[in-house]
């Protein structure tokens, strides 16, 4: 019973703050709402018996990625920038289209209500995930590290803060 109370309270928090992200005009409020939504989702992960990923959600998502967002918002001084509405037709199509999409999804998911949870404990702590990660998934794991390296280089190049020497060596292509 307690589980259900926790679920519904934090599901409501997640949905309300997610709505704040897309409805609030100020991107700083949006980013902080998204952090709150991610915390509520971390609670969901705990309920799903994935404590390792719940901690990862808080550290990586709420901690690192959202701080990056906040940094960029504040770096560009966007908190006072006025955002104009999209065209009315786009608003109308966006809201009705996504509402129809959501109803379709829920209608489709409703038939999964018959799924029965299996019995027995599900051992998914950090140790189990780590062993699986470094045995079966070692190659994708290494690929992700290369991808992250490429992302670092790409971010440095795109943000245009390279010293002028590097830029000159790169020729016209970088400009």
């Amino acid at each position, binding site marked *: 019973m307690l*589980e259900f109370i926790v*679920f519904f309270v934090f*599901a409501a928090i*997640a*949905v309300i703050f*997610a709505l704040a992200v*897309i409805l609030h005009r100020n*991107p700083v409020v*949006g*980013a902080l709402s*998204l952090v709150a*939504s*991610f915390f509520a*989702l971390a609670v*969901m*992960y705990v*309920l*799903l018996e994935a404590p*390792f*990923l719940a901690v990862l*959600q808080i550290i*990586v*998502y709420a901690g690192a*990625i959202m701080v990056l967002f906040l940094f*960029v*918002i504040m770096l*560009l001084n966007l908190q006072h*920038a006025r*955002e104009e509405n*999209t065209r009315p037709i786009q608003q109308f*199509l*966006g*809201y009705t*289209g*996504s509402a129809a*999409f*959501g109803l379709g*999804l*829920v209608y489709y*998911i409703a038939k*999964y*209500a018959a*799924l029965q*949870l*299996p019995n*027995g404990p599900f051992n998914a702590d950090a140790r*189990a*995930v780590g062993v699986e*990660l470094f045995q*079966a*998934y070692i190659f994708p794991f290494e690929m*992700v590290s290369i*991808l*992250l390296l490429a*992302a670092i280089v790409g971010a*440095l*190049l*795109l*943000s*245009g803060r390279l010293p002028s020497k590097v830029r000159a060596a790169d020729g016209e292509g970088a400009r």
Partner: protein
Amino acid sequence: MIPTHYFLILSAILFTIGVCGVLTRRNGITIFMSIELMVNAVNLTFLAYARQFHQLHGMIFVFFVMAIAAAEAAVGLAIFLSLFHHRETIDVDEANLMHW
């Protein structure tokens, strides 16, 4: 134990909110945050099914999704920084150049 479909429906709602944000906003950063919202909704689905079928693969996949979301956020925000330096705005309607 909370049934799996509760989580699936919550995930569907969050994903829909993300879709709505992408379709109706024009602030690039807000659109990006909506995408993060959708990624998280999918993560929730992965974990719900991981528990449903007692498989660790779903959790590993969530791990990779998080890593790739971090890479995507870094590169995407760098693109917006670059766009802002050239156009003084991050309105996605203004972003009509591939090369400058």
